[in-house]
């Protein structure tokens, strides 16, 4: 298997081709078989490769499997090659197994949807591209996967294309991600130009050999620009909440567990570069901290069950960036793993709730679901406890490790305290908004219509089994930290956290988790929706600002989108106007030529010739 790593992404790619080409004709049974099966086989193949790797490379060296030499030009080349090393393995296992569970879940969830084959072919394609992303051995191969997952994300967000908001959301995701891709591309060309390679190991090696620090900082910041797009960080986070327009399993897989964490991987992978550029690291940590608290406060006032989880994802991704940003790469990746479990569980749980509520997503019309859908409720509760940061569930360990590292980081110790403080407050908000969500959804009494109540039902086994598995993962994920297992296994650069700081962080984390939960219980557990109304009465301005997400979308529309649209229109329509303007300005000569050409009388030809002529004159003036 180690010499056929390409099989791992090729299997879901085959699934994509089969479902895409024949799915419509051969029916849902065929699709239900091919879709989950190809992802399962890919997961098995990946696991076999991991076991073989473990046997062959007990020291955790890098295994590279070159498929062939893809591009070569002027002594510089790039192979189409896949690699296995501990970091890739972690990503591989998360992507394939969580991916398989969500494929399985989708069989139940999407059963009655039109375009079932389309859905599974996109989902298979996504899995293939995501595996290319995490297994690629160079930035170029990673970029192939990077673009591919972006495309699938766009297609899946817009899956319900008869709904305008879904289509708009897809478009928004696509446009925002383009800005990030620009950073990635330029960073890659800089590597090609100055290092002569884009291979992960070689780039790190050359950079460590001593190059201009400014260049490394530039590359790191450009890569981070790419990461802010894909991983929804300030200022490019705006697409992720809207992406919830896609089917819920997609939100779980792409917009929580896998694709959006690619940005974290993108910082952890070239950690050698980032350690040479502490300024870039600091930017990552600050952006992460700001995003963590910013998104957490918005989460308090959202009423769409998926929107709450979306802002929660943005906020949790912020935590991961704090981790990698303060140089605690293991902690960032650890949180990526635990988050994949509990957030996938929460999203799939929300899907199960929506399924039970006949499509309702507004938590103000839910309530009292605890007894009606017990499996969903229990797994949701477990995942909520995990994300809120209660020991000994997984979220506590990973989040605590990030915050303790922020406090103790050697790169910028003074700032580290502030980042820790912001992170801890964000953790308080996290516990609060998550338990608000839980109490409003499952606690109290039912607030929906009678018809909805009549239809309430627990989901089929293909949906509940993944929930249970993911909940178990949310509980047990913390075990990865026992004896510093993950740290030794990943072998990423790290630093010592003194016991005093570790205890301080741990106690603070526990206190805020309890406090946040208690507030949520006191307000929403006891009073239900009345608590929200009181908030609105007491502080209407704050409530409205949070509800409208700090008006960032409106700001972007006014400050960027509208002017850009105008500019494009100007360039197009304005070309004619421009010529007329030049005509007026150019005075005598140009006007005379215009008169000369007027006899042609064939519509715009006169204008084109004039533009041509003016162009020549200007060029002669400048260049001759």
């Amino acid at each position: 298997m180690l010499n056929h790593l390409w099989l791992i992404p090729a299997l879901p790619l085959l699934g994509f081709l089969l479902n895409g080409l024949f799915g419509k004709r051969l029916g849902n049974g065929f699709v239900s078989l091919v879709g989950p099966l190809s992802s399962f086989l890919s997961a098995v193949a990946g696991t076999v490769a991991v076991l073989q790797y473990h046997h062959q490379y007990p020291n955790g060296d890098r295994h590279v499997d070159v498929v062939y030499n893809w591009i070569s030009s002027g002594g510089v080349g790039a192979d189409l090659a896949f690699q296995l090393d501990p970091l890739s393995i972690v990503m591989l296992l998360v992507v394939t197994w969580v991916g398989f569970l969500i494929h399985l879940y989708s069989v139940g969830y999407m059963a009655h949807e039109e375009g079932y084959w389309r859905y599974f072919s996109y989902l298979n394609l996504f899995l293939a591209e995501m595996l290319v992303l995490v297994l690629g051995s160079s930035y170029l191969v990673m970029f192939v996967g990077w673009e591919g997952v972006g495309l699938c994300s766009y297609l899946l967000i817009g899956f319900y294309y008869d709904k305008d908001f879904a289509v708009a959301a897809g478009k928004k995701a696509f446009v925002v991600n383009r800005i990030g891709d620009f950073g990635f591309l330029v960073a890659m060309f800089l590597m090609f130009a100055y290092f002569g390679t884009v291979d992960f190991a070689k780039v790190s090696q050359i950079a460590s050999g001593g190059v201009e620090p400014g260049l490394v900082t530039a590359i790191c910041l450009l890569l981070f620009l790419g990461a802010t797009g894909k991983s929804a960080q300030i200022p490019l986070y705006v697409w992720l909440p809207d992406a919830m327009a896609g089917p819920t399993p997609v939100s779980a897989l792409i917009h929580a567990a896998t694709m959006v964490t690619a940005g974290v991987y993108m910082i952890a992978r070239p950690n050698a570069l980032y350690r040479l550029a502490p300024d870039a690291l600091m930017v990552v940590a600050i952006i992460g901290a700001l995003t963590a608290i910013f998104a957490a406060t918005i989460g308090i006032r959202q009423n769409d069950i998926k929107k709450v989880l979306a802002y929660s994802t943005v906020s949790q991704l912020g935590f991961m960036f704090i981790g990698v940003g303060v140089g605690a790469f293991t902690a960032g990746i650890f949180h990526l793993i635990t988050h994949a479990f509990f957030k996938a569980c929460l999203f799939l749980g929300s899907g199960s709730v929506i399924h039970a509520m006949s499509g309702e997503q507004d938590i103000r019309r839910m309530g009292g679901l605890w007894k009606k859908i017990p499996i969903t409720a229990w797994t949701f509760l477990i995942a909520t406890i995990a994300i809120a940061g209660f020991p000994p569930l997984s979220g506590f360990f990973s989040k605590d490790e990030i915050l303790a590292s922020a406090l103790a980081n050697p790169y910028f110790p003074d700032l580290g305290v502030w980042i820790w403080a912001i992170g801890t407050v964000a953790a308080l908000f996290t516990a609060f908004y998550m338990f608000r969500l839980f109490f409003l959804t499952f606690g109290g009494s039912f607030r929906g219509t009678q018809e909805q109540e009549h239809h309430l039902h627990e989901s089929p086994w293909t949906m509940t089994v993944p929930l249970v598995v993911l909940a178990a993962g949310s509980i047990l994920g913390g075990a990865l930290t026992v004896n510093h297992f993950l740290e030794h296994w990943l072998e990423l650069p790290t630093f010592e956290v003194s016991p005093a700081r570790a205890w301080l962080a741990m106690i603070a984390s526990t206190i805020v988790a309890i406090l946040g939960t208690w507030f949520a219980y006191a307000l929403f557990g006891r009073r239900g929706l009345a608590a929200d109304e009181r908030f609105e009465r007491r502080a209407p301005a704050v409530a409205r600002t949070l509800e409208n997400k700090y008006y960032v979308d409106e700001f972007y529309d006014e400050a960027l989108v509208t002017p850009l649209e105008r500019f494009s229109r100007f360039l197009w329509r304005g070309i004619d106007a421009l010529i007329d303007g030049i005509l007026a300005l150019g005075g005598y000569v140009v006007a005379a030529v215009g008169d000369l050409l007027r006899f042609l009388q064939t519509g715009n030809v006169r204008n084109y010739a004039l533009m041509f002529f003016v162009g020549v004159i200007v060029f002669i003036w400048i260049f001759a």
Partner: protein
Amino acid sequence: MTLHPLIEPGWVNAILPELVLCVGGLLLMLLGAFGARLRGITAPLALIVFIVTAWSEKLVLAGTFFGGTYEISGITRIFDITFLLSAILATLFAREYLEREGIEGGEFYALLMWATVGMMMMAKGLDLLIVILGLELLSICIFVLVGYHRRIPVSNEASLKYFLMGAFATGFILYGTALFYGATRSTNFTEMARAFSTADPNNVLLSIAFVLLMSGLGFKLAAAPFHGWAPDVYQGAPSPIAGWLSVAPKAATLIALVRLLSAMLPMLQFSLWMKMIAALSVLSMVIGNAAAIAQRDLKRMLAYSGIAHVGYMLIALLSLRDDSVAAIAVYTITYALMNIGAFGVVSTLAKNQNDPQTLDDIAGLGFRSPFSGLALTVCMFSLSGLPPTAGFIAKFYIFKTAVDSGHLAIAIVGILTSIVSVYYYLRVVYYLYMKEPAEGYAIVPAGGIFATGALAITMIGIFVIGLFPTPLFAMAGAAARALLP
């Protein structure tokens, strides 16, 4: 100046491909005269002629002919193949299009052949006059081909526009050539290069000559600000011809430019001339991509996108090295596949050709006609430069030459604008798969076996070049090394 005997032994071998095309064109004209019964076989015959020509390329020996005015080398062979590929694809799409529109005739393919001869002359000419001769032969054929849909007003209008503007541009080219002759006493590239090596870089006359010539050629390339004609002409021309027109003449002009500029290399190092090419490139990328966003008409959108693609290709001209010439060669072949393919899908939309073909016409096409939808999707992915398609590789090579030769700023403009371009290319895919057609309005593509075959060729080509670009690039690189001084 010594006089060479113009006709040397072996001259037939030198222009064998051109001769095959000329004779083939005459035969098809004659066939056309024999009435309607033989019309069905004109297109297959034309295909055979093109394939025979491609095969005859193998018999041609490299060397200089006709008194040092005509050079055949590896790179001219690669470009000849690009012209023939474009012509073959255009023929395949034209076959059913012309039949459906009721305007089939042998002269259509004959004109395509003679136009190809003109382009071959442009690629091989070692003398400005030969290049201009080829250019004029090409242009006259284009005038007729653009207006070939003679009963349709937009087609006539497009033809007239291209004719008027083309005549205008030719004036600039000829005037520039005359000034060059005045300054260097020759129109031969080899001798011009000798004169340039001792010329004063600040010579205003030479600079004006360069700007005039470059502007005229910029027109043929549809590079901004000399692009005004392109959207109107592409919109009016029969769709298979629009696709061909957007690719082949540009490729011919580019290779002629490479030869001309490499003769001027001593001058280019010192002057502002390279800056003019940079300006053309940046303007084309910005105006082309920005204006394409606002288009709803598919052919106009592709016209503006073509302007942008010329901008990318011009980047490679900034550094005249073997890898940049190879990058241009790879780009033109890729561009031929993806752009003629895209126009080809448009040409299969059975609709009144006087009306614009808009995005609404392809709404939901991906479900009505999965094969056409897939082909157009692949072309759009490639045009936007998504990996692993050929479009990504081609752009990659271009931007890499820019970065390697220190033109980082222009590479960034290229990357930024090509990222903007993804928006309008993907909008096509969005219409294909995420949009329901308006009530009672569902155009089904009317392409038959020929169009299907052409689309299959484009799709296979796009993925083969995208996944295995190295052999092609290495071949073009080796050929380019022989070309450059």
